[in-house]
């Protein structure tokens, strides 16, 4: 005998719906690095190789002062100070709120654009001191700055006023002159 399975219920042709999950994507963050400050830090480190300070400035820390508020550059130079030296001298990065505050030996003084009107005070304060004054405001190299950062065709360049540098008893190498936009 052959039995036929007659116990089947009608099979339900159910409708099937599944909600589609969305693809998740996030937008990447832009890098937080201050590109200009890093490039300036590389320039500043290079200046220590092309400029010679007198022997009495070759002891102790190599002091880089920043006049006024330039957080990004301070941060960058502080990072640099952790890995780099000038010969055997450690870097010391200082912030001065005004030129009058400068009392000790400063090898390099950076005057950001925001503090540009302090240049004259700084030049007077540092008379007779072997301090390289570095600025970043148009026209500063003829007002006492030794090196002035300028933007030329969207690139960071620097003007060198050799007599202003040498006026602080600093020697400028020929190589630096070749790379600079020489003012005098």
């Amino acid at each position, binding site marked *: *005998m*052959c039995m*036929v399975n007659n116990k089947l219920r009608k099979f339900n042709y159910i409708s099937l719906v599944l909600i*589609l999950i969305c693809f998740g994507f996030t937008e990447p963050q*832009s890098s937080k690095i201050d590109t200009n400050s890093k490039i300036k830090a590389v320039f500043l480190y290079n200046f220590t190789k092309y400029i010679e300070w007198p022997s009495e400035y070759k002891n102790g820390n190599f002091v880089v002062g920043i006049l006024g508020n330039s957080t990004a550059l301070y941060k960058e130079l502080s990072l640099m100070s952790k890995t780099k030296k000038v010969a055997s001298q450690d870097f010391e990065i200082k912030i001065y709120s005004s030129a009058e505050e400068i009392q000790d030996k400063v090898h390099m003084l950076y005057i950001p654009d925001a503090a540009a009107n302090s240049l004259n005070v700084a030049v007077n304060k540092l008379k007779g001191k072997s301090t390289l004054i570095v600025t970043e405001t148009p026209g500063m190299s003829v007002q006492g700055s030794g090196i002035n950062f300028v933007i030329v065709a969207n690139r960071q360049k620097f003007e060198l006023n050799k007599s202003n540098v040498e006026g602080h008893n600093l020697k400028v190498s020929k190589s630096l002159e070749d790379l600079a936009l020489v003012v005098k």
Partner: protein
Amino acid sequence: MACTPELIAQNKLSNAIYALQNEELEKAQRLIDTAIVDTLLKNDSRTWYYRGNIYKELFKKMEFDNKQSPFRVTAISSFKKSYELDNGTEISISSQKNLKYLASTIFNDAATSFDTENYLLAIENYNSYKEIMHYLEPEADFKERDIQFKLALATTYTVLSSKDSTNKDSFLEKVKALYKEVLILDSNNVSANYNMGILYYNQGADMVNNMDYSLDLEELNRIQEELYVIFKKSLPFMKKAYDLNPNKEETLIGLQGIYYSMNDMEKSEAYKKELEELKVQENK
């Protein structure tokens, strides 16, 4: 009743369906796999249809979390066969619905696999989803889904690039290629434009970040030339993202950063000001 080959074959199928209805899935699987090789049943759309249902239930009960479920694969191939053998009857329509359902589960498995460990599986599953949907609807438009898929994949490659320094460049090239593909599909896609801008910007920023402080000045000048070219490449994408959505803070931050890095302080300041004004508006 005489036991004809037709009756025996019919019984094989009926018993399999009965087991399915009683949720005896392993028994149903055994019976349907016997039925499917029966010469009297193997060209019957119903046999394949029930096989699809049995394997679909096996997938749901036993392998729903398995993103490469073999039960699902068999269910799909069975429903496809049923769909091919049938011509517009209730079974054909139901096979189509089941295929869409299974395709949806594959799509969802793709969507939930977008991490650095499982992204290859996500790619495979998304392609399977498209293959099934294309089979059912040859004219189906996947543009929007493809865009979302490519953006998700680009995100994964971006994460991988930050974790794997050896293959970083290769992953970033893939990211770039994916955003380009999205922009071909939709040149007005805000995310792809913004991300492409960020990608080039970060490429430049990384180059700066990796510079040694003792880099000589001639080399620094050469790098500056290279940086200018890279930052300039990011600009049209970020500008487009801005044009499409001027009130997006990230885009204003991006434009401010790009112009700053290109030493165009005037424009950088202008976008900074716009961002500050936007924030004031938002806080009102």
